[in-house]
């Protein structure tokens, strides 16, 4: 009995083992490892740029590819300084993907987008509207939603091809710069997702950082030179860095920016310790909208110049007043610009949508004109609890030793 049972068990076991072996054999042999892509068969894309193709209605897709080089074997030749850090591939097509598919014909390896660091649109293309080109970034499995987007001042390929001193490639550089800037204010960081989300909401205008290339003593450099204003996927205008600051102050959640203020008495730069803006949107009876921004925060003195002969305790209220005025002014200036463009970069419309969904239905169609007639009041209240390491400026009263 027992022997029989043991035999049965063995037979079953063996047939099971055989089945599993057969199955795994089949899987291994028939598979061909579908998703397997060896690293040395990949071009790692670190930047994608879209531009208008010259003299045609096509667009140019420029890809920047991080270069990998073998450190072992045949390294003697690579000593030359001419080596660039990145490979630039270019093609034109009707849509981004159309261009990229063309690129497959002249690249030795397959393109790999998951590590893309930046997406760039040229301002020329942006002015004509980006909506039709965004679908690719939304649909493609490999493209990542948290890639930062940029608008370039000038042709995009030049920016991607810039040979930088600071980072390996322009894509990496831009990603790092944005990472760094987002420590100042989260509104600097515009990811693909944010851009899409804002473009989807019809009334909201998206902002995208602008980047420009310039030469400086033989060295090529890139810099962020403001933000492009989009409305319905089309670029209207741009804010310069100064105006961007006004926007950021209006949006609140400011972490660490410098605010420069000047009066006849002296010149001062404040560092924000914390600064937040509360927004209160009210609908007026006549259909207009009233927006009240109340900025509250603490500033530290970063640098002080002037204020000759003044007593330190007296300086503080003076400084506070200066800072408050400055912030107010800056916010208002940017707001005026947005109003003149009828571009709701502050997403006031969607706030009304959320809070007063019914009234919003009526306003929605004429939002542009409503926006341009918004009443803005700015309330600023700052404190200066921090003066840096030194209590007083050298030029100030109490600082001089003559008192003793």
């Amino acid at each position, binding site marked *: 009995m027992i022997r029989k049972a043991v035999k049965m068990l063995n037979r079953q076991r063996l047939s099971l083992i055989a089945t599993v072996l057969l199955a795994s054999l089949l899987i291994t042999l028939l598979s061909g490892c579908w*998703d397997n892509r060896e690293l040395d068969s990949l071009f790692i894309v670190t930047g994608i740029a879209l531009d208008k193709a010259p003299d045609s209605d096509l667009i140019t897709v420029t890809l920047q590819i991080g270069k990998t080089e073998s450190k072992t074997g045949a390294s003697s030749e690579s000593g030359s300084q001419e080596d660039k850090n990145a490979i630039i591939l270019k093609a034109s097509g009707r849509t981004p993907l159309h261009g990229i598919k063309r690129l497959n014909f002249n690249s030795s390896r397959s393109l790999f987008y998951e590590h893309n660091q930046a997406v760039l649109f040229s301002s020329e293309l942006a002015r004509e509207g980006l909506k039709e080109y965004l679908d690719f970034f939304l649909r493609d499995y490999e493209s990542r*939603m*948290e890639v930062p987007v940029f608008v370039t001042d000038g042709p995009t390929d030049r920016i991607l091809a810039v040979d930088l001193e600071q980072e390996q490639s322009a894509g990496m550089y831009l990603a790092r710069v944005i990472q760094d800037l987002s420590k100042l204010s989260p509104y600097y960081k515009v990811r693909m997702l944010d851009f899409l989300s804002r473009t989807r909401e019809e009334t909201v205008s998206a902002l995208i950082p602008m980047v420009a290339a310039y030469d400086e003593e033989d060295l090529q450099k890139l810099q962020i030179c403001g933000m492009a204003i989009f409305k319905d996927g089309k670029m209207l205008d741009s804010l310069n860095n100064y105006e961007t600051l006004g926007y950021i102050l209006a949006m609140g959640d400011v972490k660490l920016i410098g605010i420069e203020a000047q009066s006849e008495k002296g010149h001062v730069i404040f560092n924000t310790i914390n600064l937040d803006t509360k927004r209160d949107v009210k609908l007026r009876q006549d259909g207009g909208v009233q927006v009240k921004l109340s900025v509250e925060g603490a500033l530290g003195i970063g640098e002080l110049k002037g204020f000759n002969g003044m007593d330190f305790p007296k300086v503080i209220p003076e400084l506070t007043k200066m800072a408050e005025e400055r912030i107010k002014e800056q916010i208002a200036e940017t707001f005026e610009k947005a109003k003149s463009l009828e571009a709701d970069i502050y997403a006031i419309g969607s706030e009304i*949508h959320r809070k007063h969904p019914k009234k919003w239905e009526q306003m929605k169609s004429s939002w542009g004109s409503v926006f341009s007639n918004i009443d803005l009041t700015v309330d600023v209240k700052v404190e200066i609890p921090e003066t840096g390491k030194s209590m007083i400026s050298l030029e100030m009263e109490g600082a001089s030793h003559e008192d003793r």
Partner: protein
Amino acid sequence: MRIDKGQISSRLLLFSVACFLQSSALLTAFLTEITRQDSWIVVLLGAIVYLPFLWLLGTLMAMFPEQNLIQILDEVYGPVLGKILGLAYLWFFLTLSSVNLTDLADFTKGTIMFRTPAPAMSAVCILVSAIAVRKGIKLVTKFSPLFVIVAIVTMTLSTFLVINQFKLENFLPIFTLPAKSYFQGTHIIATIPFGEMVVYLMIHPNVKFSRREIRKSLFWGFAVGGLTLWSTTLRDIGVLGNTVDLFTVPSLITFRLVQVGPSISRTEILFAIILIMLLFYKITLLYYVAVLTISQLFKIRSYNHLVLVVGSLMITYGLTLYPSPQKQAASVQETVPVIWTVFEILIPTLTFILAKIRKLPKAKEA
């Protein structure tokens, strides 16, 4: 005649139920597409609507502690009608497991293995599941506490990691969608993740329990699973805002947004793997139930030979179910809840009423 003699504790049942529901948390797209930012309300509504039926389920289990669903049907409806209903349930369970298997394969294909054919993934999954199914209910449910803990830890951790991107405004406006979509959403949520708990009617004879305990375990399992589902929905809406209905798997996009420092940002694949493991648990349970149903219906003493056969059946059936994920989404939103309602709510209710009228379990005791 009980085919699988393994016994599990009622605590294991609790975890099993919780894990079963949690695994649905990754496929909330069918809901968010309809009810957008109000999905979280709908999840709550669905849970409340399902509660009486959960009680019903517990009562049925307590009424027939020694019989599984097929045997209950046999007893309540007589041998002929009972068998017909049993066959219908067999179809239901098979479809359910195939649908989930296809979901797993499609999810994997859509998140980490873009070019690998889905059947290869289902086949591997079935081969691994078969290890558990062959050994019976004990092994099938053995690791459910582990999965529950992993799921809760993952959800909590990911929530903490995206909390800085969480915006309360994203929940506004509330209640602006047409009433029909609320109804539809509630129906979907009550039938698709919650209603599927009807499969536990096949398992309860293997649970060591007393009458009160079974309802308690069912309820707590339901609570844990439902809460996870609800908080996942909340988190996804809060983070993704108005883009939540754009994506096929909102949770995954949420995970994509996780950034811990500049170097560790691409974490979504790890989460995807964990979600796959959770779904794997559900498939194993459904697979086991399907195999058990077949052997119960055809009175086979040992189902070991059946396991791989049913597995391959599930794979092939899954291939023919839906031509594309879009079709599947459409059917999940429209036809599936209706058919599922019959199996998950109507028949159990009818069985309960008939059994009460005929005073069935009491006759048996005497």
